[in-house]
């Protein structure tokens, strides 16, 4: 318990210290914070509920488009846009959750893919509003809280994204530590028995689904606001897969998985895909096979094992 609290503090301190440590990479930092938030939101489903989905890009994209369209047509205030993005994704999560959560395993994966394709197609066809295949342009955010204009150095963008992530993490943390979070773990471990304990399993999962979708929507909204652009491939099956891979790379259901996985993934991608995208596919594929056969549990599990060994040696 003490270790957990110390690590939680370390995560927040790391977010705060990043601008001092890497003042030249604040753009990258903001991008990573957004991906961490997205992977963390997926962790709620994959890691805690045990629901495997390939549909998270739908919520990310819904949030991005909603915030982007809101900025273009209604108000350029960032925080209001964040709320709109989160709410739009939550609504989509509510609607799709009712359908998706009746199924499990392969059918759930298929329906989650279908959700992504539906949102993608809608964004593609509804070009007058979304910009279609060219992406949504013309977003110009007003200063954050009316005072801090988004600048070229990316400082404001980073602080904005990191603060949002910090708040989201505090929420995520209290959620997984709550009885609700425990009951999600119970559903993951033995859904049938949870029914026999009187748990309204469907309602619990739908709640988790909406929360997860909302957080992913906030991440999408951040992305739209920080880059002032929404690309059509924000809602793609590929991106859904990437989010899942980031989470797994870090370790699902282990609280900090997203914080490790997303940055490592981004670094690897920048490095390995530089010359030939085929290289990237090969490495990421081999890495997944290696995780499955050699290191289930991802980086977090590896780090935890090393920590245990060090501690064992000391005592």
């Amino acid at each position, binding site marked *: 318990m003490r270790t957990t609290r110390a690590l939680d503090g370390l995560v927040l301190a790391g977010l705060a210290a990043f601008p001092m440590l890497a003042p030249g990479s604040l753009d990258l930092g903001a991008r990573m914070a957004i991906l961490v938030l997205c992977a963390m939101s997926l962790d709620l489903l994959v890691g805690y509920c045990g629901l495997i989905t390939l549909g998270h890009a739908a919520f990310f994209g819904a949030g991005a488009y909603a915030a982007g369209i809101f900025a273009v047509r209604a108000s350029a205030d960032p925080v209001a846009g964040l709320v709109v993005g989160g709410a739009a994704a939550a609504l989509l999560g509510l609607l799709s959750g009712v359908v998706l959560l009746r199924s499990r395993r392969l059918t759930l994966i298929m329906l989650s893919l279908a959700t992504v394709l539906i949102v993608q197609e809608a964004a593609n066809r509804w070009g007058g509003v979304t910009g279609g295949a060219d992406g949504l342009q013309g977003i110009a955010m007003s200063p954050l809280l009316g005072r801090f204009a988004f600048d070229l150095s990316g400082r404001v963008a980073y602080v904005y994204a990191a603060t949002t992530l910090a708040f989201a993490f505090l929420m995520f943390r209290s959620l997984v530590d*709550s*009885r609700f979070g*425990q009951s999600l773990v119970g559903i993951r471990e*033995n859904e049938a028995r949870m*029914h026999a*304990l*009187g*748990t309204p399993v469907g309602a619990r999962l739908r709640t988790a689904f909406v929360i997860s979708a909302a957080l992913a929507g906030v991440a999408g909204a951040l992305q739209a606001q920080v880059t002032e652009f929404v690309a059509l491939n924000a809602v793609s099956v590929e991106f859904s897969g990437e989010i899942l891979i980031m989470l797994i790379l870090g370790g699902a259901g282990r609280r900090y998985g997203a914080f490790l996985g997303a940055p490592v993934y981004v670094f690897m991608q920048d490095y390995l895909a530089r010359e030939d995208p085929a290289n990237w596919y090969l490495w990421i594929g081999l890495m997944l096979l290696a995780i499955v056969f050699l290191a289930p549990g991802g980086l977090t599990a590896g780090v935890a094992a090393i920590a245990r060994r060090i501690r064992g040696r000391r005592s």
Partner: protein
Amino acid sequence: MTGAALEVRGVSKRFGSLDVARNVQLSLEEGARCALIGPNGAGKTTLVNLISGRLAPTAGEIWMSGRNVTAMPEAARVKAGIGRTFQITNLFRRLTVEENLALAVAEQLGAAGRLWPDRRARASIDGRVAGMLAMLRLTDHAGRRVELLPYGVQRIVELALALALAPKILLLDEPAAGVPRADVGIIFEAIEQLPTSMAVLLIEHDIDVVFRFATRVVVLVAGEVLAEGSPREISEHPQVRALYLGDARHE
């Protein structure tokens, strides 16, 4: 008039062309101690599944305290007061004994849906869990993962999960099956100490246990109630003797 704690009214269940329950009538008063016996494959577990809501009957109705619960899903029936154990241990294997019990207790206290950590709820859950652990002599195993425990201890956890729901009606599906002789005592001691207001339906093969525990015995054969009565009546029932007790002696 509220009626019996549990009433099974003419319940039938068909799987394809197979009748696993045929027009079963069964009634448990508050505080009843009833045993359900019958040869393997008689449909005893199916009946428990029908009562608990895991299976839906093909015909017939289930009533609880004067309320028709036939259409009620399993989880809602638990909230209405039915608790059960499983014949084959059905636990959260990768969680600790404590965590297993806390899931049930939190659900029973209505705290399981809380979205943030709640210190007061936690204290009352921890207190209840500790009490259950002590009662079933599980305290030493509290922090161990269930899958690492000997099967006999797992059976006790199975019973503990059902008791943690503080049910009004408790269905025990062979609670001592697979438990080493030495530990059987713990289980039946716990069963004997159940609150007197709780209605208990026990499926059990050991006839001595049945006759010691039950005030009423129901014999199920091929999905049908063959006989029902006091242990004495059942032990003197010629068909039961031929069909069931004779077999049991040979085992």
